[in-house]
């Protein structure tokens, strides 16, 4: 019996194999949205837990990675909705270009604040599309919506972001 079928049947060894195969990817997918490494680790476990609970609904002939990514994105979105957190940039994340003045530091912090204030469903599109450079098609698959819906969300997100930045005295 192949791995996916064994997993659906509740085989813990098969689940462990899938976990080890995908844990880095799931962690990265989540971190790109929540931008908080300790939270991303906990949410990775949460994503696999949801996957394990929902294993009866998984089609063993389907793509495990795509299914898992959808779960991971939903877990990250749920986290943003409940945490309503700012976008932190912990020291172990890749650093943005070093600011060379207090003005630039202020600008950077205003941009992060504006991004963190976006509604989660718009913020995720901006982070994946504009920060991580993911194609709209991939974002659409990950969110379970059409590429056109991604475009609409991006349009709204950029408009809202521009408004918030203008309020903060920054001209995009």
């Amino acid at each position, binding site marked *: 019996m192949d791995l996916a079928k064994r997993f659906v049947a509740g085989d*813990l060894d098969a689940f*462990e194999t899938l*976990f*080890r195969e995908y*844990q*880095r990817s799931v*962690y*990265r997918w989540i*971190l*790109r949205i929540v*931008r908080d*490494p300790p939270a*991303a*680790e*906990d949410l*990775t*476990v949460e994503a*696999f*837990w949801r996957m*394990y609970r929902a294993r009866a609904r998984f089609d063993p002939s389907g793509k495990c990675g795509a299914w898992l990514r959808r779960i991971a994105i939903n877990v990250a979105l749920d986290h943003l909705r409940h945490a309503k957190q700012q*976008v932190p*940039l912990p020291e172990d*994340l*890749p*650093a*943005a*270009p070093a600011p060379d003045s207090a003005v630039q530091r202020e*600008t*950077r*912090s205003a*941009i*992060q604040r504006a*991004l963190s204030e976006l509604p989660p469903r718009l913020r995720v599109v*901006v*982070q994946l*599309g*504009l*920060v*991580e*450079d993911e*194609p*709209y*098609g991939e974002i659409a698959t990950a969110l379970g919506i059409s*590429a*056109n819906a*991604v*475009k609409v969300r*991006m*349009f709204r997100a*950029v408009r809202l*972001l*521009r408004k918030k*930045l203008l309020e903060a005295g*920054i001209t*995009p």
Partner: protein
Amino acid sequence: MNDPRHDHEPEAMKKLLKTAVSPIKDAEPRRDLWPQMLRRLEAAPSRVPWWDWALLAGTVAAVFLFPSVLPALLFHL
């Protein structure tokens, strides 16, 4: 298929965002998460599906409304 991002990609906003938020390329968890996963699996209460509760409720209601079905029920257990 044309990539729809080329239709109106907000390049200026992208540049601005990248001055404040860096992309994450090769991040990895700082520890093996499998032990935490196992703890989560062990801690999870065994869940009884809703239809099992519905069946139980139906049985209790049937016994309450029609006590004569009790011997037949016990016979089939």
